[in-house]
């Protein structure tokens, strides 16, 4: 089976974008906490414990969705950049440019939402931004979508820089995915796991951003000239291709911390085997083609697209479950390590990712989708893998940097366990809501649904407390980290 092997060599990373990585993480942490508070507010509103005007609820929902997707990408980008820097030569100014565009976009979006009253949802589903019955003005919709466009351009530049650097070092994106090893049996220049992940991420994110930019521009034109209409089904396809792919890619960015740190913590190498490469090539294609699982209730879609949406969504879980997930568990199994905060967060992230896949695959089955689509089952699945998969990766990375990149076990891991406990119960309440047919994105809930919302409020408070501690552990060490550059 596995023949080509890469053994972890380099350790301390000569990361030339270090300043930016730290700023990305600080921004990620702060925005994350604010967005979590917005999420808590929504749960409070739904639980009936805090009256909230629906207009405000939907503004919060739009800000929370957009902001969380934004920082998922920002935090993921920090992780990936840092570890990729050990293998390819990246230009630090790109991190700065992306950061500047990100901040401009954030300001635009905040103005659009809280001054303009925009509440079109993070998916800005055409033609809702333009047709709100005057709940928000056209300028607010334009400002929100313009802000998204600016952020998208930033990430596009960022992705192209990764692609450039990978091509310069490995001779092509195909080689970054290890195709010369996979298909031609070469043992030369085998890309390490982080490079493989980075190649996948640049490919899929670039394509996602191009589609996203296209539909944003079309929507902006439509706002300015309402006579120029878009086919709503086309717009929906573009939006979900963009949205699905972009948010999915963030966890494939974050996983670099698992690939890099577990071998160092356990002293066991993470091999680039042929199976590993095949899995990543599979993920690259699957992530791009399975987005129709968001359109299963659009009966106007061609049936073959629905078949792809169902069958390949299922197949897409293989690489996560049996290659990355199982691989991480194998590295840890009987490794003789002592658990500490970083390693427990990494274990949590592997669990959260693998487990979060399960409700997603189930919902991507048409029979199920007919009675689960757009219920709370959906936020249940994606909060599962973002809150318990992606975030623990980012927290582990923050703490790792705060500890001067030293992975020697230190202190206990009680807080990581509490985070898992609160987080797990929190996402379970979404899933239970889905089981009880509660629609998603409802500002007000029926009394019989509110017991789940109330439990979720308590659990969310716990999650936020612990997230605050993790972020604070990073922020207090920030001055020292910047000085030590």
């Amino acid at each position, binding site marked *: 089976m596995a023949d080509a092997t890469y053994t972890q060599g380099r350790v301390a990373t000569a990361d030339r974008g270090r300043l930016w990585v730290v700023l990305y993480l600080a921004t990620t942490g702060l925005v994350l906490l604010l967005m979590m508070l917005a999420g808590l507010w929504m749960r409070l509103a739904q639980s009936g414990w805090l009256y909230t005007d629906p207009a405000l609820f939907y503004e919060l929902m739009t800000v929370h969705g957009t902001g969380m997707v934004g920082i998922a990408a920002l935090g993921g980008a920090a992780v990936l950049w840092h570890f990729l820097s050990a293998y390819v030569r990246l230009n630090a100014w790109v991190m700065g440019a992306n950061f500047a565009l990100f901040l401009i976009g954030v300001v635009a979006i905040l103005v659009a939402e809280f001054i303009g009253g925009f509440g079109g949802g993070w998916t800005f589903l055409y033609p809702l931004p333009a047709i709100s019955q005057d709940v928000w003005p056209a300028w607010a919709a334009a400002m929100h979508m313009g802000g998204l466009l600016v952020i998208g351009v930033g990430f596009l530049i960022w992705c192209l820089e990764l692609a450039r650097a990978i091509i310069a070092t490995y001779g092509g994106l195909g080689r970054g995915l290890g195709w010369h090893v996979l298909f031609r049996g070469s043992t030369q220049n085998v890309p390490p796991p982080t490079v493989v992940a980075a190649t996948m991420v640049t490919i899929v994110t670039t394509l996602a951003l191009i589609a996203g930019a296209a539909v944003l521009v079309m929507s902006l034109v439509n706002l300015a000239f309402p006579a120029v209409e878009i086919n709503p089904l086309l717009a929906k396809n573009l939006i979900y291709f963009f949205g699905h792919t972009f948010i999915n890619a963030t966890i494939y960015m974050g996983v670099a911390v698992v690939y890099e740190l577990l071998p160092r913590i356990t002293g066991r190498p993470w091999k680039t085997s042929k199976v590993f490469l095949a899995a990543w090539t599979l993920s690259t294609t699957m992530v791009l083609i399975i987005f129709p699982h968001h359109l299963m209730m659009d009966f106007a879609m061609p049936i073959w697209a629905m078949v792809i949406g169902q069958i390949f969504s299922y197949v897409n879980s293989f690489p996560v479950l049996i290659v990355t997930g199982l691989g991480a568990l194998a590295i840890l199994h009987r490794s003789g390590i002592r658990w500490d905060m970083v390693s427990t967060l990494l274990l949590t992230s592997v669990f959260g990712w693998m487990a979060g896949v399960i409700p997603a695959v189930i919902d991507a089955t048409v029979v199920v989708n007919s009675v689960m689509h*757009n219920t709370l089952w959906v936020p249940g699945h994606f909060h599962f893998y973002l809150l318990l998969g992606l975030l623990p990766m980012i927290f582990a990375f923050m703490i790792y940097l705060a500890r001067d990149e030293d992975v020697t076990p230190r202190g206990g891991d009680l807080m990581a366990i509490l985070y898992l406990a609160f987080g797990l119960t929190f996402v379970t309440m979404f899933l239970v809501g889905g089981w009880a047919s509660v629609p998603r994105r409802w500002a007000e809930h029926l009394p019989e649904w509110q017991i789940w919302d109330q439990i979720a409020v308590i659990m969310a408070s716990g999650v936020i407390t612990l997230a605050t501690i993790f972020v604070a552990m990073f922020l207090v060490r920030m001055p020292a980290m910047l000085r030590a550059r």
Partner: protein
Amino acid sequence: MSIQTVCALLTLVAILALSAVVLRVRILAQEGHDYAPVQGNAYRIRAIGFWILVLVGLPISIWLFRENPYTVQATAPQVINATGYQWYWDLDRSEVAAGAPVEFRVTSADVNHGFGIYDPTGELVAQTQAMPGYINRLTHVFETPGNYQVLCLEYCGLVHHAMITEIVVTEGTTNG
């Protein structure tokens, strides 16, 4: 058992099984061991997992697809034309008979809405999207009479959560 309950139980069992594995790794990680045998085991488990996913899961996934709402076509169904507006449903008829197929022809006059049919116990039983410019045909047979609610299942703006209407399902057969 409803589809929802089956799915919830399936999810529960799968996640509990995964938790057991993760917990075992967590507990046994403290004792040191050579990697080679652990890795050998992992490769074996991976191979077994792969073949289970392919040989058991894939046929199930394909088999389940035959249950899809796209190709269902009833002869002489009771027809309801439904149009979504911000923020109400316009139905050309709101009473149908149980036991015989109903065809909903669903569209929207403005933005996307979602046409979700809830049974008298509050369980979602079928849905389709209401998209401007398209008519989605959803065929459903109501087995039990009663008052069914239609809830909006696609975010459509300020009053999305109050976009509700009712369909009365009566005993016996009426003409379509």
